[in-house]
């Protein structure tokens, strides 16, 4: 194709298109960022004090209800979560979420069966949260925890 010469028309055409692009970008990009970016934001986590470590019995999951404030947009909500604290005889601690990994029902510890039981679809988890039987696809979620000064802290 023969090179078209840069006529006045062509310059104007280029200028107008450039100006249109510039204006669109100047208004459009902040707007897009405004709408889209918050979706990628991590919600803030907080450390909650659960209790004294020596108050938990070993090999016996203890249900703890955590009540904390969480910001949901412009609203502050009081959120309740139940976790199971399992202290092993060797001193290590596991903090298991009570949310079943299958369909988000709440599991409970069955003392006789020595397992976590989910009533929705008969899922069973063992003391460590591993799936024994039933439809759950993966073990119970563990929450990050740490010990400080004899107290157990959990991150939510």
């Amino acid at each position, binding site marked *: 194709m023969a090179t078209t010469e840069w006529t006045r*028309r062509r310059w*104007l*055409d280029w*200028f*107008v298109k450039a*100006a*249109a692009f*510039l*204006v669109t970008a*100047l*208004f*459009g990009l*902040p*707007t897009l*960022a*405004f*709408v889209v*970016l*918050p979706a990628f934001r991590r919600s803030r986590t907080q450390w909650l004090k659960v209790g004294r470590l020596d108050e938990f019995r070993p090999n016996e999951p203890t249900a703890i209800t955590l009540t904390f404030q969480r*910001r949901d*947009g*412009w*609203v*502050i909500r*009081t959120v309740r979560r139940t976790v199971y604290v399992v202290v092993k005889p060797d001193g290590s601690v596991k903090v298991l979420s009570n949310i079943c990994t299958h369909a988000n029902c709440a599991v409970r510890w069955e003392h006789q069966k020595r397992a976590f039981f989910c009533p929705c679809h008969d899922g069973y988890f063992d003391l460590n949260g591993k799936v024994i039987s039933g439809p759950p696809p993966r073990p119970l979620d563990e929450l990050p925890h740490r010990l400080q000064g004899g107290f157990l802290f959990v991150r939510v």
Partner: protein
Amino acid sequence: MLNWLERETGLVSAWQRFWAQPLPATVGWGHIFGALTLLCLAILFVTGGAMMFYYSPTPDQAYPSVQYMERFLPFGKFIRALHYWAARLIVPLIIIHLVRAFLWGAYKKPRQMIWVTGVLLLLCVIGFGLTGYALPWDQKAYWGTAVRLKIAEGIPFIGHAIANFLKGGEQIGAVTLMRFYVLHVFVLPILTFLLVAWHIRQVHHLGVAPAWVRVGDEGAVPKTQRLHPDHTFRIAIGAIIFTALLLWFAARYPAPLEPRANPLDTAYKPHPDFYVLWLHELLKLFPPDWEFVGSFVLPTVLVLLLIAVPFLDRSPERHPLQRLPAITTGLTVLFAIIVLNIKGMEALPKPENLSPLERRGRELFVELRCYSCHGINGGGGPIGPDLGLGGKRDPKKVEAILRNPGAFNAHTVMPAYNLPPDDMKALVAYIVSLGPHSRMPPIPPVEPEKPPSHFEDNWLITHKFEVRKDPQSCQSCHKPFFCQACHQQRRPSSHLRPDWLKFHFGNAADELRTCDTCHTPDYCADCHRLTRHDTAWLRQHGATLTKFGETKRFGATTLHQLCYQCHTRQSCDECHQGALPESHKVPDFLQRHGELAKSGDKTMATANRQANAQTCATCHTQAFCTNCHMGAKPKSHEQPNFVAQGIRGAGRGKSGHALEALRKGVQSCATCHEQKFCANCHGMPMPHPQGFVRTHIQEARRNLALCQRCHDWGEQSCRQCHAKRPPSHTADFRETHPQRLADGGASCQVCHGRNACADCHRLPMPHPDNFLHAHGELAKGQQGNERQRVQNLHRQLCAHCHTIAYCRKCHLLGNP
């Protein structure tokens, strides 16, 4: 892609045809404003649509959602500012576009409907402005809406109906806000879109009116340019300038957000936006009953006239000079509006112009949360006076009040603020600057929102009852020490009892959360430091009390006294009834407990604790000892010389019990014996009372023998005083002392020893009872004949007192 679209819809070629359309030669820079208005509208749509993702149109959520946008979202402030400034720039743009069309006569046949739709679009834009204004639901939004609805109500006949329709009922509230929201984001956009589509379609279909050409002569103007790129170039320049202007405004001046709407706040004065000031000025020309003429009739007439322009000015001439009547009318109206607007702007209160110091003061006002009690021309809290009122303040007085509010009003709950000097100066400067023109500064979001109870008139008084009902109800919003903000100055009535320290224990035991409302959890530790009654304390309190009970002091109180502020003696019994302290658990405690009662004894095997009789008193009363010690003597009493002294004579010492008493103090006896027990032997209470040195003379005179039971006349203690001659020993004492002796010579023994008389008399004095008969025996020991014996005897013994002649009282000479 494009081929597919073209095949399906034919839109691509239509698009290209649109942009390539030829335009008359006389279309120039004056014709860019329609496009710019459209650009502005597009910006408003885009930014508005973005904000719809986050805005919540209910009265309690609207304001926080706007604050959320402003503070927590990327570009939130910017997007909102863009929307705000675009909304304010579109009105001038439309006016310019309208005036241009008017002057160019572009409304003439066949383009009347373009004009009409244009005017309707102007009304839509005004509608957008009125509805969008209310959406942030801040003070300005709420009260501005209230005013406008009131104006609408003033319309005769239909006013109430219109106002109620807009309000969604009788009251301004949630329904109103929702209506305004739906009008703003749904109804008006649809209307606007349809009108814009019609408007642009007509321009395209009928062509742009060439400048100032007679109706009918349009064909004569050659179409030498195309929309793109000839005219779009001009539009592009205009667009760039407009963009720059808008971006600068949005970046430099964020959209204002006043404090949250408070429907109970009647002190707030709303001000209209600048482009309706002329209307407000117009209103002032009419007496109150006729206000609706100014507020409704005139504007309606104006609008109708505007719409009717193409039908009123039917002359085929487009040139301005050819249609002077229309031009002059139009320009006059425009001029009048502008003048009225300027007048209105002058009547506005001056914006606050704060110096940097005052600005810092305003920051402090917000930081220190002064607004929670004070308003500034509305807003804030209802507890303190509104600082916008009250006239010019004296800076010295302001500072004095800040430092000590109680000095000016004894019943104030205002806490004292002793700020560092710079901050104090700034805050005072700001407060002094406040006046009728001032406004409450923007308050950062304080979440969560105040419940309705806090807006009630006497909340300051009634909150006490709410707290008592459930202390934790406050904690859903307030941190526990929030109460201190006011209660620094004012204690709750319970704390004003004089014996509160003693009784607070009961309150705390009953409902500890009540304390939490003001006191942090470690507040108790200040006093309860050594006595945190937890498990560890229970194990150690015995040792702690033994060790520190009397020695550790908190101010003037000892640890023991501190215990007794809450506990009675019986409190110990609650546990120790049956429960023994560690010390009692030693196997031979019963035998060895006597040592426990000794002070300073460290030989106890149970601990290196210093125990004394006081320790026993923590649990046992004195009577407890007598349970056993009635009859059963302690070991100490079993030593040989416990009761009485040893052998009389030289080398004898004190009795055992005297030594004990001297060593340990008489209190050790008191464990079993009452004080009067001593008197059984001693004839007087033991030990000697204070001042006995002075009073013992009487006792001694009365019965010297009592002293002799304990005191040896050779004792140092007596000699200290009695070394000198007593006053009784006058010059003639030697002769007179036999008669003067009142107590048989017993008191002589104090100085002269037991055998005081014998030192001189060589015989016990006074003569014993049977001396009369027995004195003859004394002579038997002498040598010689009878006469010599008597003479020797007399010389040795009797001569001190008696002459030989004395014997003649009974003895006749020569007669034995």
